[in-house]
């Protein structure tokens, strides 16, 4: 059996080598062919000859002959694209799971209508784009720039419809958002800006959870630009939250902020900022949060920088009755060093929270210290290595007033990540490993994860590209209280993978095949949905562009989702989509 495998592997290697050799020859041949046929290069050659001649003639003080004008390699510019389509989901099983995040258009729809007019005035720019009209999920963008006078306006609106992945029938959730920006340059280096956003959300959940129906409105006005030797920014923002179900308290947050970045000289920058947020809630006392921050960068050498930062927050929340932070301080110092292709940095961060306890009679001050580092650079073999990580310790613990008064905070947290990347013109590859560990000594609790990602992009031939990636997460956990189920039984391992082939036989045709898959391994002690899942998504996508800008596209997407515990969550879908577009 093993010999057979070896034979097959050898055979595959030979085929691979042949393909690679053909690809290499094709790569070598293509430029020669292109050089022979390209009008640009012909013109370039003529230009060189003419140039040489011009040099010779110029010595005789004769006029230079006219140069041959090169031709553009671009297709003619287009100003309008209109694309329509038809799609059929062909879905069986849980439609809610299928439509969980965004809704695939169904039936006839306008895929895209984008218009960028040819404006003779170079100082103006307009675009408008509509997408997905005809379905419940659509988007529109509008942009308008008047460069004379320094005014800029842009806007958008969008609607999305989606579902919670429930096995019981639950109606659609939706989100509708719209907004616009207005910016006026007062001087060359100073501008005023106004932003407005409106966001309405209706979320429907499975019983016994109540649904949500809320509206958020955000607007801000800011003045920013160069003032004196630095950069000044002043802003005022208002966030209004309204709950239409009457469950949550309506709130209004008014924030004032100002910051100044002072470029002392080429090596020193200082930035200071202040903000105050006034929080008003219906039927409740007002709260406020003040922040003051100071940040300084000092270059102490050609490749050495020091950064110092401090942040101070004061909170007044008279309605809050349980443990809350009334004051928070964060200080950090970091040193970064550049040496040839290597860059490294190390920093120390201290944080202390002054907490008022549940009875409001005692203040405790938990403190954390964090050491963080990063190193990256080139290593032999054309590889690039990046290593980063941090270790955090809870150096002073607070008290807790719970059934089990043991410390609830993590007493130590460690994180490390290593990344190796390499490649050449036709191949790029990478490997990433991440480790994280959170520990609570008082409860003998520990959660650890190790995750790795391997991937590569390979240009098999000038027309064929391949991309593959594999990602795996391993989780484990333990605590002083053992028995089934424990923490470790609630931490599933997960694997995701992707393989994609893209084929561009010529300038007009495009074909891609994408396979994406994921799967979980879960003890799932409570036998709940979404715990033991497997998804397989294949998408075949093709496009062909005709002479006069017409384009036809198709998509076939057989998707499969399986929940091994709750079969009602399963679905099979074969999305078929046909689109046609034209350009003017």
């Amino acid at each position, binding site marked *: 059996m093993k010999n057979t495998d070896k034979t097959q592997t050898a055979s595959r290697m030979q085929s691979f080598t042949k393909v690679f050799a053909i690809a290499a020859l094709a790569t070598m041949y293509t430029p020669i062919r292109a050089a022979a046929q390209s009008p640009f290069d012909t013109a370039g050659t003529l230009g060189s000859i003419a140039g040489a001649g011009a040099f010779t003639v110029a010595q005789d003080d004769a006029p230079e002959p006219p140069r041959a004008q090169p031709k553009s390699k671009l297709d003619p510019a287009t100003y309008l694209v209109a694309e329509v389509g038809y799609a059929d989901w062909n879905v069986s099983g849980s439609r809610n799971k299928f439509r969980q995040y965004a809704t695939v258009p169904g039936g006839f729809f306008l895929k895209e209508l984008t218009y960028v007019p040819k404006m003779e005035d170079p100082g103006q720019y307009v675009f408008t784009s509509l997408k997905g009209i005809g379905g419940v999920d659509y988007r529109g963008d509008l942009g308008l720039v008047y460069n004379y006078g320094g005014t800029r306006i842009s806007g958008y609106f969008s609607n999305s419809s989606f579902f919670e992945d429930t096995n019981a029938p639950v109606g659609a959730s939706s989100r509708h958002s719209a907004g616009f920006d207005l910016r006026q340059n007062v001087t060359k280096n100073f501008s005023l800006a106004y932003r407005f956003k409106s966001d309405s959300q209706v979320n429907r959940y499975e019983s016994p959870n109540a649904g949500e129906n*809320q509206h958020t409105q955000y607007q801000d006005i800011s003045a920013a630009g160069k003032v004196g030797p630095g950069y000044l920014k002043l802003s005022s923002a208002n966030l209004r939250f309204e709950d239409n179900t009457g469950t949550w308290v309506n709130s209004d947050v008014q924030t004032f902020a100002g910051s100044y970045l002072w470029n002392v000289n080429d090596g020193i920058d200082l930035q200071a900022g202040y903000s105050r947020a006034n929080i008003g809630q219906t039927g409740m006392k007002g709260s406020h949060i003040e922040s003051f921050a100071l940040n300084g960068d000092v270059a102490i050498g050609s490749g050495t920088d020091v950064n110092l930062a401090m942040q101070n927050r004061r909170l007044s929340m008279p*309605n809050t009755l349980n443990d809350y932070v009334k004051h928070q301080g964060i200080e950090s110092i970091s040193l970064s060093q550049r040496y040839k292709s290597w860059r490294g940095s190390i920093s120390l961060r201290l944080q202390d929270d002054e907490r008022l306890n549940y009875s409001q009679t005692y203040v405790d001050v938990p403190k954390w210290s964090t050491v963080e580092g990063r190193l990256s650079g080139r290593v032999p073999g054309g590889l690039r290595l990046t290593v980063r990580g941090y270790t955090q310790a809870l150096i002073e613990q607070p008290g807790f007033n719970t059934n089990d008064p043991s410390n609830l905070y993590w007493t130590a947290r460690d994180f490390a990540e290593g990344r190796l990347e390499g490649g050449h013109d036709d191949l790029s590859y990478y490997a990433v490993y991440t480790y994280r560990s959170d520990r609570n000594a008082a409860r003998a609790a520990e959660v650890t994860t190790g995750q790795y990602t391997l991937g590569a992009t390979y240009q098999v031939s000038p027309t064929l590209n391949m991309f593959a990636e594999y990602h795996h997460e391993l989780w484990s956990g333990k605590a002083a209280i053992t028995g089934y189920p424990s923490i470790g039984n609630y931490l599933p391992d997960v694997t995701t993978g992707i393989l994609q082939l893209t084929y561009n036989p010529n300038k007009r045709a495009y074909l891609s095949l994408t396979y994406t898959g994921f799967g979980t391994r879960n003890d799932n002690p409570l036998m709940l949905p979404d715990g033991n899942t497997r998804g397989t998504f294949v998408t075949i996508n093709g496009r062909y562009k005709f002479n006069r800008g017409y384009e036809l596209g198709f998509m076939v997407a057989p998707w499969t989702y399986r929940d091994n515990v709750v079969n009602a969550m399963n679905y099979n879908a074969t999305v078929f989509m046909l689109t046609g577009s034209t350009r003017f």
Partner: protein
Amino acid sequence: MKNTGSYRRFFLYSIPVTLLAGLIVASVFATPAPPKTNGKDTEAKTAKAAKPAKFPLSLWATADEGDYSGGKNCTNCHKTQTDSYERSPHTVYMKDPHNTVDKTGCEGCHGPSKNHVAHRKEEEGLYQNVVSYTHSTPEQIAASCLRCHQDTVTQNHWKRTEHSHAGVSCTSCHQMHWADRLGKDRIRVAPDQKNDALTNTVGKAQVASVFTNAAAPKALLKSNEANLCGSCHRKVGAEFRNNFHHPVPEGRLVCSDCHSAHPNRDDRKLMRTAKQACITCHADVAGPFVYEHDPASDLTGTGCLECHNPHGSSNPAILNSFTRGLCIKCHTDKSVNHNPGRNCWDSGCHSAIHGSNHDPRFLQR
């Protein structure tokens, strides 16, 4: 009432402030003094002592008005590039008649054309007389772009960003020349240019084309943000392929909705916290509540990230543990005997887990 924080804090703050003040003073005194002169050759010596602008800034700094052609010569050789430039929204700004000559047209980005034309056949001097963004270092690229874009980030700040440390510069993400005025095929300026790996990196973007309503890339980006950012942030790209994720692959969100690629100008770096990015959409959990749930209040630990992995997770609600395993990581005493059933929050019990105005155990919103 016991308050021990104020004095400690005073000493704690005085350390970085003192250090910072010391560094500023040291840096000012460390600046080399101008050389002493004795009369006649004062001007010449001062000129000699003045620090010359480094390439590529020197191209603009040393140019006279006559060194600029107004872009007339460029089309003679770079027809494809001038055509693609005309199709880009960047042109709107480069053709502004209020601009000075050194910030107008092709020469606004590539430097004055006179010396480039004169030395165009010299292999050695070719790229010393023009700013070629494919032959420049990340520092040189940033220096060129930040001549105008100082309101985004200054040169001093840029070189201290994580992006700068990783060798990522402006043209790593932004593209000034468009093959198509409509913004399609931004990567491929020339048809025979090899397809960039960016277009295939995240991969699921191909699946995203099923979802037709994604917003178009803005700010002259080379590609949609999922592909663009994912080309370096590989692990994050992989996390979006999990069963539960924010709808970035579907085009409903983009990376810059939560992250700032130019962090030093942004208040987020200075004063904001992770939660403030989350509550832009999830305003219902912003609080403050009468009864705060400590990790959700964003004042200890990592705030929202204590429980959620915003990019993607195999667990519902992008939690970083499955069901009630999330709670027993801290509340270890509730692991075995405390009402075994469904999740702690959606079984009708702790339904206000982000905070409650009525119940200290978060049983009611």
